[in-house]
């Protein structure tokens, strides 16, 4: 375990009766990293994160968060981590400021409520009852409550589940800010774009196992899935000429006068395409490259979509 490692999980196991929810999972998270556990519902993500939070016992393996074993020193650990659980609520008639003061009172170290209100854009709502907040504001408050103790490590369980796209983007902005502050973040998600946009490192979890791990870029590059290059030239080109391009796997023309090339090495294919167009004194009017996504990687690894 390196000095910079804040979370270390080794051979973690957990079963519920006959169901093995977590099967020998290992990973490490370095200080300041945003790490995502990506997987479909029921993959075991929540069980993993709740074991790390000290909320659930484990059957085997070792876990260290901020140097503490959650099963041995849960109180000390909880002083140092910020947690946002799925499906939580507050009493309808508690105000935003009261909630922040209340939760802060349980910690030895705390951030001022005024600071959190500004940070999470809730200053104008400080005297508003919880029941009168929008879904996005309630979620922002949930994230603010996770930060009341100025935590070194923040654990978010599906932080954007059930939110509309605009609110989801707001939450992304807040998590980006945590990364800028060099806080360590572990989040679970089943949203591909969330993992791609927010995470430095992603572990894909399925049936209680990590089936792939790396940066989103590494995982996509390591994928056997091909990129899709769509372009429109000024003058038509013969499809057979495009099929000869380096690494081109499949070529077809479409009705708009353009072509679609599938390639596992999109940069090389693009370079070859440019050389061909220059040689033929042709030009590109429009070009669009679509890399395989983590969703494609997941399908490649499991044969299923994330939302199956």
């Amino acid at each position, binding site marked *: 375990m390196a000095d910079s490692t804040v979370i270390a999980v080794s051979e973690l196991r957990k079963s519920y009766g006959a169901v093995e929810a977590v099967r020998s999972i290992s990973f490490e998270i370095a200080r300041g990293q945003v790490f995502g556990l990506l997987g479909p519902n029921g993959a075991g993500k929540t069980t993993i994160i709740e074991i790390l939070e000290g*909320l659930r016992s484990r059957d085997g393996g070792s876990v260290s968060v901020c140097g503490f074993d959650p099963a041995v020193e849960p109180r000390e650990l909880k002083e140092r981590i910020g947690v946002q659980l799925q*499906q*939580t609520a507050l*009493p309808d*008639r508690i105000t935003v400021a009261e909630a922040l003061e209340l939760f802060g*009172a349980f910690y030895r170290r705390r951030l001022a409520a005024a600071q959190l209100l500004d940070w999470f854009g809730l200053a104008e709502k400080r005297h508003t009852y919880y029941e009168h907040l929008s879904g996005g504001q309630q979620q922002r408050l949930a994230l603010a409550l996770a930060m009341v103790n100025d935590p070194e490590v923040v654990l978010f369980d599906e932080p954007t589940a059930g939110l509309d796209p605009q609110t989801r983007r707001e939450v992304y902005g807040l998590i980006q800010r945590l990364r800028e502050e060099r806080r360590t973040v572990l989040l679970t998600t089943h949203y591909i774009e969330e993992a791609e946009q927010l995470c430095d490192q992603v572990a894909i979890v399925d049936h209680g196992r990590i089936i792939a791990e790396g940066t989103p870029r590494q995982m996509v590059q390591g994928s056997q899935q091909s990129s899709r290059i769509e372009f429109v030239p000024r003058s038509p080109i013969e499809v057979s000429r495009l099929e000869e391009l380096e690494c081109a796997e499949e070529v077809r023309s479409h009705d708009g006068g353009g072509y679609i090339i599938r390639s596992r090495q999109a940069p090389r294919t693009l370079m070859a395409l440019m050389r061909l167009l220059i040689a033929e004194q042709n030009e590109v009017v429009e070009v669009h490259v679509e890399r395989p996504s983590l969703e494609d990687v997941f399908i490649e690894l499991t044969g299923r979509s994330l939302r199956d």
Partner: protein
Amino acid sequence: MKGTLELTMVRLKLLVRNRSAIFFAIIFPIVFLFIYAFLFARGKPEAVRFLMGPVVVLTILGSGFWGVGFQIVFFREKNILRRFRPLPSGPGPLLVSGILANWVLQVGVVGLEFWIARLVFGIPWPSHPVQLFVVGSLGLFAFAGIGLVIASITNTMQETQVICNLLWFAFMFLSGATVPMAQLPGLIQHVALFLPSFYLVYGMQSLLFRDLSLTAMIPEMVALSLTTVTGYLLGLKLFRWDTQMRLPWRVKAWALPAAVPFLVLGLWANLYSDRIREAVELFRAAWPGQ
């Protein structure tokens, strides 16, 4: 400690912001005071003074069951307890703050009841206010403890309502809190000695009518205190943060220790004390000729 006090304050604020809670915690007991005073005591000061015991017990009994126990189950079903789960403090502050907030509120309500009874019906101020405060507080804590036990063993709000209502009716109608002990059948009088509400009514009436010292009520006070402690410990032991953590039937047997203090006290009172005779005499002193 700071978190517990902050949570107690928040719970008091939540109570006064909730119209339904205000009605059941404050207005409803005062309505009962007027019903008892006009219907049973016909406005006679001595009879009203005698009925202050049952009125106070009715007030604090309901608050312990619904204000403390039911509220825990309500918070659990609304996923509010889950939000508190990652805090370093565990469930203790949630239980203690419920008991404290209920105590603060009900001390105020009982004080208001005595003030109204004096103002409207002319009863004298209690001659032993400190002793009355001590016994009333022990009763409040004990019923809150029973409320916590109910919350610990029930899985849903409906289940909690059923158990709270069953116990409430038993505690009210079989203990002398509604029908005076003197008018209860002999068998029920012996059953009443197993119920905490009997001792609270008896203690209140003794303090209001006689110069009874607290030392004469040590067994009752010990039983009330043990019920509080047992209820709190069971509340901690069986605490569940969310509705997914359901309790199997065999685990519900854990609630039985909460009944032990009053089982023992009931046996003692039936075998060795004159509590029934004393309760009957208190009634006859307030209602001569009955």
